[in-house]
């Protein structure tokens, strides 16, 4: 149950998988993302509501074939330049995209967690998202005749999240802004959780989400594994790292240097 991050990624994530590394500006599983880059995984379909700098890094490193998302940016800073470069110029590889609204992605995870083939919501009506994404449709209420939007469930092969604590049985506890992590984990075929620490017993915390160990495949102890995002009660967001990423990511050469120096892997594309 408790594995090294290296072993957990090797065991649970495979080339071609659909992978969700979820987190809503809080508890982003950055260290796990870096390990995926390090292991040279390829052809991943990356799923996330809010792809941020770790997704920019995965895309720039050439791990992704496709991105399924609702808002891709550097939160509080600006755009994701590796993402842009992949979409606009196909560097280092073409990136297929499927985009939704937050409301749509949220409900795709809820449907995935619920064992339903699709979800309904009031959304998308009149937007150009509809015509550009075959995974947005409508159904008609059999009672009122009202038409509502429909989106298919998302069921990642693997969901990766970061949490504050786990116990030796793999029960996982996270708190603060809990985002969509519960649904992303329940929707997945396999679940990898990096945690700040393992504790013998998990003292209840107000507002916590507890994921029972039986839905968790591996726990890896990675203190600081969410940095430069934050872990409520453990450490703060390193805002300067987000700002610095803007400069690094604008330039392919600077990115390649970052990749080699910080992650220890060769660049995926020339400049």
């Amino acid at each position, binding site marked *: 149950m408790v594995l090294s991050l290296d072993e957990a990624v090797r065991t649970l994530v495979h080339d071609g998988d659909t992978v969700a590394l979820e987190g809503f500006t809080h508890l982003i599983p950055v260290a796990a993302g870096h390990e995926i880059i390090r292991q040279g995984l390829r052809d991943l379909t990356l799923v996330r509501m809010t792809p941020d700098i770790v997704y920019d890094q995965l895309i720039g490193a050439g791990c992704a074939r496709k991105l399924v998302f609702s808002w891709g940016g550097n939160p509080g800073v600006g755009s994701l330049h590796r993402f842009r470069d992949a979409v606009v110029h196909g560097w280092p590889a073409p990136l297929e995209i499927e985009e939704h609204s937050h409301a749509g992605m949220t409900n795709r995870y809820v449907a995935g967690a619920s064992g339903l083939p699709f979800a309904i919501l009031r959304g998308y009506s009149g937007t150009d998202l509809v015509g550009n994404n075959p995974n947005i449709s409508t159904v008609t209420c059999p009672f009122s005749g009202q038409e509502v939007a429909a989106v298919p469930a998302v069921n990642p092969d693997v969901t990766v999240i970061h949490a504050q604590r786990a116990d030796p049985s793999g029960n996982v506890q996270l708190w*603060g*802004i809990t985002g969509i992590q519960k649904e992303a984990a329940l929707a997945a075929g396999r679940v990898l959780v990096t945690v700040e620490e393992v504790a013998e017993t998990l003292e209840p915390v107000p507002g916590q989400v507890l994921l029972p160990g039986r839905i968790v495949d591996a726990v890896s102890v990675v203190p600081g594994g969410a940095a430069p995002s934050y872990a409520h009660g453990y450490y703060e967001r390193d805002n300067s790292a987000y700002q610095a990423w803007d400069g690094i990511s604008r330039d392919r050469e600077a990115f390649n240097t970052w990749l080699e120096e910080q992650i220890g892997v060769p660049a995926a594309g020339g400049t």
Partner: protein
Amino acid sequence: MTTVTWTSDEIMTVTAARALEDEMSCFVGIGLPSTAANVARRTHAPGLWMVYESGTLGTVPDHLPLSIGDGVLADTADTVVPVPEVFNYWLQAGRIDVGFLGAAQIDRYANINTTVIGDYSSPAIRLPGAGGAPEIAASCGEAIVIMRHSRRAFVDQVDFVTSVGHGRGKGDRERLGLRGAGPTRVITDLGVLEPDPDTGELVLTGLHPGVEVEQVTQATGWGLLVAENVIPTPAPTETELSVVRSLTGNRQP
């Protein structure tokens, strides 16, 4: 003699703050909307109920959050709910009075683009995308757009409709099943635009101090209609400016 001066961000922020009424529920994004809402709460609207899409309901941060999921939002909220609840139980259910939107492009009917400049399949510029905006524009009681005025941003027709404003005109929102009033004002660094009640087309209805009508029409990429009675924006008060500056950490320029 003291001359009060302000930046374009500050006049936008203050104008947006004034649009919020006490006790309203407000869906807040990061940047100017967050500053505006927090200014309102510290001035005329102490009961403003701020919701960030990360699930923090009724939050009262003591400083501006760095992101919509900043820890200070959770620490000071009435309650933190999972993301599905904030979108389904609060936004979709019509419980939010006013939502803020930004835009890369806006058109004469206040339709909004935050997705791509150029063609969707081979864009000139790729933007972050929809996020919460389509459903904020659809389901909040009303939406307020904040953005800088320029011919590049204020275009006759947006390259991509990320969020529907007033469609192709009056009646389109009802036809599309959108339940909120949509964008009721667009606050820029030059003035305020509001949809004509009969046609849904944006009309210049407010001018910030020192701005001429012609500046606004020239910064707009379509033949902008001007209201008969354009209301001058009252200058920011010293209180308003000092609250803005204490929040943003900016000194007076």
